């Protein structure tokens, strides 16, 4: 519990946040260890961002306990923040300043010396692939560049924990992949990452361990592979019989496998061997308009746990 890879950096017990009658975080427990990449997966409104803000010492809790680096955020806010790098959901870069100036002034907020920041800026610009944009005003950057700059900014103080709230929401696929690559490099260097996302592919790519959240509660917690193993089959057969027929044919399909999910546009059938199941379907005279065999994903886990899809 104290040293090396097993050191617990964040520990929450029965953590809760209420706004009047509304409960945003409903008594959750979790631990994050040094060097881990820990993800909060859940739909919008699951309580992920609220939990992140409590960890970041910018929001007070309504109940339970939490310690970050062994300290209570309500008593030692600045002491904890000194070791955190925060990438918020919405970019809050200084629009009036250039790329370089944004990095510089953020270093100053941490009380860092100018010569140190000057050296650090070069390293961060290269990391964020923004060296040739250094003098450009922030408002002229693309969404992906702003995101990378926000991440670079959060690294200026060499934080122990890097917190990313929905890091790739609103980015195009190419920009997302560049960002994942950068985050993966940080992970390789042993930076502890804390990520919230409602994208299952992002969670699978980046997280060692995941906490699936819904309506302020923890639904499950494990590695992405472990979650899939516990809550889904190896493969999924997706079939479409046409939107008006899907519901009527569902009872027949239900008899063939342990679990099916009927979505508005398609039916998901859970099986160890998808191809064999499809073959079996054809033998029975059930011919779907389209079919697709794929491996189970976290989306299936979430569906199983909550009965809903991640992105409604």
């Amino acid at each position, binding site marked *: 519990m104290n040293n090396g890879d097993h050191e617990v950096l964040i520990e929450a017990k029965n953590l809760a946040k209420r706004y009047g009658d509304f409960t945003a975080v409903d008594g959750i427990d979790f631990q994050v260890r040094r060097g881990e990449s820990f993800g909060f997966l859940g739909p919008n409104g699951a309580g992920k961002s609220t939990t992140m803000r409590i960890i*970041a010492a*910018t*929001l*007070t809790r309504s109940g339970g306990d939490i310690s970050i680096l062994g300290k209570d955020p309500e008593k030692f*806010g*600045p*002491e904890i*923040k*000194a*070791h*955190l790098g*925060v990438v*918020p959901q*919405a970019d*809050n*870069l*200084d*629009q*009036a*300043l250039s790329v370089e*100036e944004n990095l510089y*002034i*953020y270093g*100053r*907020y*941490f*009380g*860092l010396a100018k010569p*140190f920041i000057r*050296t*650090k800026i070069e*390293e961060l610009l290269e*990391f964020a692939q923004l060296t040739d944009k250094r003098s450009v005003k922030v408002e002229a950057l693309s969404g992906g560049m702003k995101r990378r700059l926000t991440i670079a*900014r959060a*690294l200026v*103080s*060499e934080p122990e924990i890097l917190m990313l709230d929905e890091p790739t929401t609103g980015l195009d696929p190419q920009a997302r992949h560049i960002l994942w690559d950068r985050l993966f*490099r*940080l992970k390789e*260097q042993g930076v502890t990452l804390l990520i919230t996302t409602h994208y299952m592919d992002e969670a699978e790519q980046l997280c060692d361990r995941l906490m699936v959240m819904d309506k302020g509660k923890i639904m499950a917690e494990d590695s992405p592979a472990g979650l899939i193993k516990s809550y889904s089959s190896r493969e999924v057969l997706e079939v479409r019989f046409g939107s008006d027929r899907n519901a009527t044919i569902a009872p027949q399909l239900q008899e063939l496998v342990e679990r099916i999910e009927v979505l508005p546009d398609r039916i998901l059938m859970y099986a160890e061997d998808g191809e064999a199941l499809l073959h079996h379907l054809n033998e029975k005279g059930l011919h779907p308009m389209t079919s697709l065999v794929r491996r189970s994903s976290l989306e299936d886990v979430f569906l199983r746990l909550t009965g809903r899809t991640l992105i409604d």
Partner: protein
Amino acid sequence: MATRLGSLKLVDVNTVKRRGAFAVVEARMMVLFKYIPGVVSAAVANPLLYLIAVGIGVGKLINHHSGGVDGVKYLAFLAPALLSTAAIQNAMDEAVFPTLEGFKWNKTFFAMNATPITGKQIANGVLLAAMLRVLFSVTVYGTIIFLFGGFSSARGWLAIPTSLAAGAAFGSFIMGIAAWTKNDDQFFMILNRFVMMPLFLFSGTFYQLSTIPIYLRWIGWLSPLWHTTELGRYLTYGHHISPLMFVVHIGFLCAMYIFGIRFAHVQFERRLAK
């Protein structure tokens, strides 16, 4: 990114606790320097226009008819009021707009608050930066008044510190209001027209407060402009005020500043924790 340039304890939180507000000032100055032509031309053009129109035009009229006001030339009478007005206007601009920007338009205060910098320090930094701009503007203004021959003696420069007091008292208070207000669309327009204008017109700026009917004087009593103008006139040319009123003026300004900055601290902390 493979290397750590600093030690594991790179950030010294005590440094931030001592100097965090100055980092906020540095950020404000970096932004302000981008608009330096605008800042300088506003600092020069406003006083020039006022002094030509009111100081010289109206002043000539008054000096001709009654030989001045309160025993001095009209411009010497007017100078402390003009400087305080400029200080209040500049403090308002620099306290209100960066605050609205930091909380609402750009959310830069939330970025600052993700570092060890506290809401209190952000408020102090914004006010301090505003006061630097006020100092610059009133110094330019004072120099122009001096060149127009508006100071009856070297004591005329003493109106600069009194105008700074007006800026600090009003600036801290208005910054708290800017942090408190959720809907800024109408608010500051209304404030400008229905609060700033009456304050400017009824605070003994162009004539002594005692010349207007008693039922309008309360506007002056509640205005930092009147209190600093009275102090300024006392210091620059010996305008008569009783020892009691001297204490009242200083006390009012101190109270407004202390209340203002405390109010701002509470509003900043509250807004950041929402």
